[in-house]
């Protein structure tokens, strides 16, 4: 009987239009943020911060961006890695070449460059649809990979073509220790999540979804497919680009195009499909699932092995990890094609009715 919205009457549209109309949800989210910002930094050890939470957050951000394009506007893209790469390398160049360029500014500028590239590679979407478009976006993936390997200017003529950054800081605060990196990433992600949420529940968001659901009808009520699709590509690749910059700056510290390979693109697509297309929350669920599962399996299997008293060799473990990973993905798609986010809402529905079955 705890989770109810009845008794909470909305007296203004404003009140009805907030992100979490139900009071309990608002409380929950505040609590979650409190934990994320205060408790986690205090308790989590280096490994969890550096190797799990930070990549989880950054990839959630990327997934969020991709979700705008695929989930909300219905344009499938397999070239996400490319846009991350553009973000990372552009940010790197701003950071290295411009004296005293603040890191945050560099990251955002990187995002803008990704936007430009994203729009260019979005143009085919005006004519090509569905799977054809999906495969076509791979052109972006391979071209960008190639460009950053071949055009040495982008990599500041590093002999190996691999670049890196050090001594990061924001507004004078150093971003060196895991906790600092974590908090910085978290802040960026939260802000972007809010902005994107606002977009998708505003006019532009409705235009995207209209194009996704029924483009002819959308055109008839005066929505321009060109504008809707290209803005989707722009916003999406901006967010993805920023995520890419963070991936390079905060997580890897030093990277090469391989860090944004086609596998990354697939990984992100998995996140939004498993998490839930067209759902902000889903992006986070998906990221959690895809990031944590392999790491978890990779460590759980040997542990289980020793538990039953046999030493599993590394190759076997990682092969089995891939197997289980693949199998679980299929399993998930079967039980809930609409992703974890849908499960979440079903769960909440059930909770509302609890303890009455219907």
């Amino acid at each position, binding site marked *: 009987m705890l989770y109810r919205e009845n008794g909470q009457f909305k007296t203004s549209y404003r009140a009805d239009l907030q992100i979490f109309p139900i009071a309990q949800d608002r409380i929950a989210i505040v609590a979650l943020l409190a934990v994320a910002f205060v408790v986690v930094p205090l308790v989590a050890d280096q490994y969890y911060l550096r190797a799990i939470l930070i990549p989880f957050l950054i990839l959630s951000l990327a997934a969020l961006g991709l979700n705008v394009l695929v989930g909300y506007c219905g344009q499938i893209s397999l070239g996400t890695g490319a846009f991350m790469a553009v973000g990372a390398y552009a940010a790197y160049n701003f950071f290295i070449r411009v004296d005293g360029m603040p890191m945050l500014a560099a990251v955002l500028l990187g995002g803008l460059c990704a936007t430009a590239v994203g729009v260019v590679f979005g143009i085919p979407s005006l004519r090509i649809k569905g799977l054809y478009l999906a495969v076509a976006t791979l052109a972006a993936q391979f071209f960008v990979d190639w460009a950053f390997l071949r055009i040495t200017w982008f990599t500041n003529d590093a002999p190996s073509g691999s670049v890196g950054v050090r001594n990061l800081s924001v507004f004078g605060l150093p971003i060196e220790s895991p906790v600092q990196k974590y908090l910085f990433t978290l802040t960026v992600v939260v802000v972007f999540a809010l902005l994107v949420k606002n*977009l998708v529940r505003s*006019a532009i968001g409705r235009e995207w979804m209209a194009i996704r659901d029924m483009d002819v009808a959308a055109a*008839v009520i*005066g929505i321009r497919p060109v504008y809707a699709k290209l803005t989707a590509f722009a916003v999406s690749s901006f967010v993805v680009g920023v995520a890419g910059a963070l991936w390079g700056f905060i997580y890897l510290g030093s990277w090469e195009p391989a860090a944004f390979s086609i596998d990354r693109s697939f990984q992100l697509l998995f996140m939004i499909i498993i998490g839930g297309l067209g759902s902000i929350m889903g992006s986070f669920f998906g990221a959690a699932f895809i990031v944590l599962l392999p790491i978890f399996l990779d460590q759980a299997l040997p542990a289980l092995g020793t538990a039953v008293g046999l030493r599993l060799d590394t190759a076997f473990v990682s092969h089995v990890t891939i197997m289980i990973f693949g199998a679980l993905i299929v399993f998930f798609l079967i039980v809930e094609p609409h992703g974890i986010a849908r499960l979440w809402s079903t769960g909440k529905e059930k909770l509302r009715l609890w303890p009455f079955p219907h």
Partner: protein
Amino acid sequence: MEGSVTLKALAGAGMPHRKIGEVILDVQNISLRFGGVKALTDISFDVREHEVRAIIGPNGAGKSSMLNCINGVYQPQQGAITFRGKTFKHMNSRQVAKMGVARTFQSLALFKGMSVLDNIMTGRNLRMKRNLLWQALRIGPAEREENEHRAVVERIIDFLEIQAWRKTPVGRLPYGLQKRVDLGRALAMEPQVLLLDEPMAGMNVEEKQDMCRFILDVNDEFGTTIVLIEHDMGVVMDISDRVVVLDYGKKIGDGTPDEVRANPEVIKAYLGTTH
């Protein structure tokens, strides 16, 4: 049929104190081909302000294609369309919408993933001016704008009596209600001309009566000109001022319901088939 006899009476505001105005939409010699197939051949008719204009004809007569030409979904090979004195060879969907022509669809073309509210809100998009950044920040003007339009949409929701389903994804609504939402989305554009493509297809008598009432109310209260495609002859004859009859992409009749009813060609081609 017997249900529709009493329709005018049912539709409370039925008694026409609305005066029919000048020609607002004029279709001249439209011809449309898909490869070899002729969808429309040399169609001409006009629509006067405030009137209810019906387009009837058997299946595949080219009725929907006609509407699609009017709001720029299809580009006819020949002919022109004049709207409020401006003549166009090809209509551009957005332009048409801007000029105040709205449209409902035969096979529902709602945005299935979105709630009733959002579906109708899309009808307001043309009027929302705030740019991406404002929308992203959603403070001050952007939020005010959103709320204003929300208010308008709520009025439409009340008018169509679908308050209870505000936040339901339209995909889950029964057919009849979806038809209403479709109408609501069109109304949200505050159109001067409303193109209705078989608004009553597949409805039972009660639903048809409701829908007729909505249509006539719209026509009366907002003085909206209505172009209507309908199969149900009874309905058409009852609520429309003038009727165009199409058959195999050709115009075979045009005039008041009574004239059309009397037209032998129409009887042969159309009424013949219904009985």
